[in-house]
């Protein structure tokens, strides 16, 4: 066994950390307040390879290993939860499906622009106003073949990056009689007539990541825009989500590390009862517990990423990593606020934002409850 990052991964971690420290972290509070994405950083991220975590080299990608991809999202999360979410969704949800299931033509059309940041960020539309955790029964967006075209009608909700995306990969019901084999992922270019992207949702956290409701009104796209084979959409989605879970776990890890660093810095500066806050046992035990939880989450996230890289089954491990890391991040941010006291509750200090950002992580890309269902199923069946 080896618990150390290799030289390539360490260099990558340092580079992404330095980049985020200069170009993202200083602006996190401002873009949270404005609830706007940091568009000015996207092309710069493209040059580093941050927008091509899941894209093969031949289409402008980095052909990156899963651990390095997790490291990148972790470092982005350390700098800004919202930006990290948009970039995680771009890579894991927007690019990965095209990389994994797209035809040569689809890859050539979309991946170079997405990997450089020139055409925007990728987006995947699964959730609907009436269907989230239960896509199989609840999904009502319908795509019907009409000659050489799909005609799509329905609505989607909580779609990350929709306003930034050149193309929205949309999960549609294409054969209502076929049960789980009746879904397809269809590429819908964002300028297509009949596709309405609603204004950005007003969210508690991850506010620098735009989230939108979508309406499809007789949206017509070529039949060739289906990703892979028609009828495979649900199975493809489940595979995509396994990878996304590692990413959200890594993102949560970054938020928690940032919150703990803020708490440690404050505890070393603040004096009370004639001592430093960091000298009081009540603080020291909190800091120790936070570090233990962060380390545990890191091992779980890296394990899942490593399994993915090795081509081994990782559904159970990704669910465990996401469940633990996301709930851990909320606990660590809570403790960080507690250590900063009133200042922690103020927008003047970043832990308040981190707490709001962390809160989403137990909901997006599969709630904690869904993760427990996934884990329990595998625990019970052995």
């Amino acid at each position: 066994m080896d618990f150390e990052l290799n030289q390539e991964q360490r260099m990558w971690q340092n580079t992404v950390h330095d980049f985020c420290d200069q170009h993202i972290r200083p602006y996190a509070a401002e873009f949270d307040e404005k609830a706007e994405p940091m568009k000015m950083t996207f092309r710069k991220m493209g040059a580093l390879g941050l927008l091509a975590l899941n894209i093969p080299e031949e289409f402008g990608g980095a052909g990156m290993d899963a651990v390095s991809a997790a490291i990148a999202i972790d470092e982005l999360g350390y700098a800004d939860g919202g930006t990290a979410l948009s970039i995680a969704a771009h890579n894991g949800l927007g690019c990965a499906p095209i990389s994994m299931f797209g035809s040569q033509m689809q890859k050539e059309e979309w991946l170079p622009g997405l990997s450089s940041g020139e055409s925007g960020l990728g987006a995947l539309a699964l959730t609907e106003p009436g269907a989230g955790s239960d896509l199989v029964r609840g999904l009502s967006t319908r795509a019907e073949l009409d000659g050489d075209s799909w005609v799509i009608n329905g609505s989607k909700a909580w779609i990350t990056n929709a306003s930034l995306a050149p193309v929205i990969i949309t999960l549609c019901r294409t054969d209502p009689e076929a049960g789980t084999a009746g879904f397809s992922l269809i590429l819908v270019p964002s300028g297509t007539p009949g596709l309405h992207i609603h204004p950005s949702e007003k969210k508690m956290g991850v506010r620098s990541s735009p989230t939108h409701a979508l309406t499809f009104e007789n949206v017509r796209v070529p039949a060739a825009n289906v990703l892979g084979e028609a009828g495979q959409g649900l199975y493809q989605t489940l595979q995509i989500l396994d990878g996304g879970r590692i990413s959200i776990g890594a993102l949560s890890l970054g938020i928690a590390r940032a919150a703990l660093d803020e708490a440690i810095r404050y505890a070393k500066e603040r004096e009370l009862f004639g001592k430093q806050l960091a000298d009081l046992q009540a603080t020291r035990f909190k800091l120790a517990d936070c570090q233990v939880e962060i380390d545990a989450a890191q091992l779980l996230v890296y394990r899942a990423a490593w399994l993915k890289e090795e081509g081994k089954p990782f559904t159970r491990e990704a669910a465990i990593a996401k469940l633990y890391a996301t709930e851990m991040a909320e606990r660590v941010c809570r403790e960080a606020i507690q250590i900063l006291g009133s200042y922690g509750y103020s927008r003047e200090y970043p832990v308040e934002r981190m707490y709001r950002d962390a809160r989403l992580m137990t909901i997006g890309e599969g709630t904690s409850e869904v993760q427990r269902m996934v884990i329990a199923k595998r625990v019970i069946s052995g």
Partner: protein
Amino acid sequence: MKIIVCVKQVPDSAAAMSVEDGKISWGDAPLVINPWDEYAVEAALRLTEAQGGDVIALSLGDENAKEAIKHALAMGCSEAILVNDPAMAGADTQAVARVLAAAIQKIGGADIVVFGKQAIDSDVGATPSMVARLLGWPAVTLVSEIVECTQSEIKASRAMEEGRQQVAAELPVVLSIVKDYGEPRYPSFMGIRKAARASVPEWTVADTGIDLPSAVVTWPNVMAPPEREVTNEIIEGSNPEEIAAKLADKIMEEKVL
């Protein structure tokens, strides 16, 4: 065009420096590529992007210098050479310049040698000029902009305290680069992968074809500067005008102005 960029490994600028038993220590702070050298690498890469050609990173140092070299490779240098000789530990600037000049001659065929303005550890800033002198090439230091570069001539703008100076020099030439040149690029993941897998040849001083140069400067004693006594005084007043007036009086009283 063949460009050699010289890079050095230095303690991180955030490291706390101290003096222990007459030797400078930075504890266990990480070593990084000299920040000025990143600008030099950037300048070298931009020149070859415009002109075609290769950039070779050259460093004199021990095993630790490999990190600086890997950084330069990850930014886009095509190859790298490390001159690693324990006899050079603690060498002075002229000894370093002699070894670098010999290594540059051994590599051969360079049109331009690029340095950062200075290294942040010793802050001497004389190496580029010394290397140029030893090679018999012109030295264009403190370059903030390369106005034009052909196969035979370079026109550059120098950032000096007095203002800007435009100079032209024939190739081959030695340049030193300042911050105004432009932000160095971040290594890409692809660059990092290439750098991590690259093998870096190591030379001793003897391999460069010269005898071990002896130091002409020695440091009989090294001490930390005495700590300055600083006192803070908060000037209070009922309105900004009153505070400003009191501050002005105070400044005059202390003979700061």
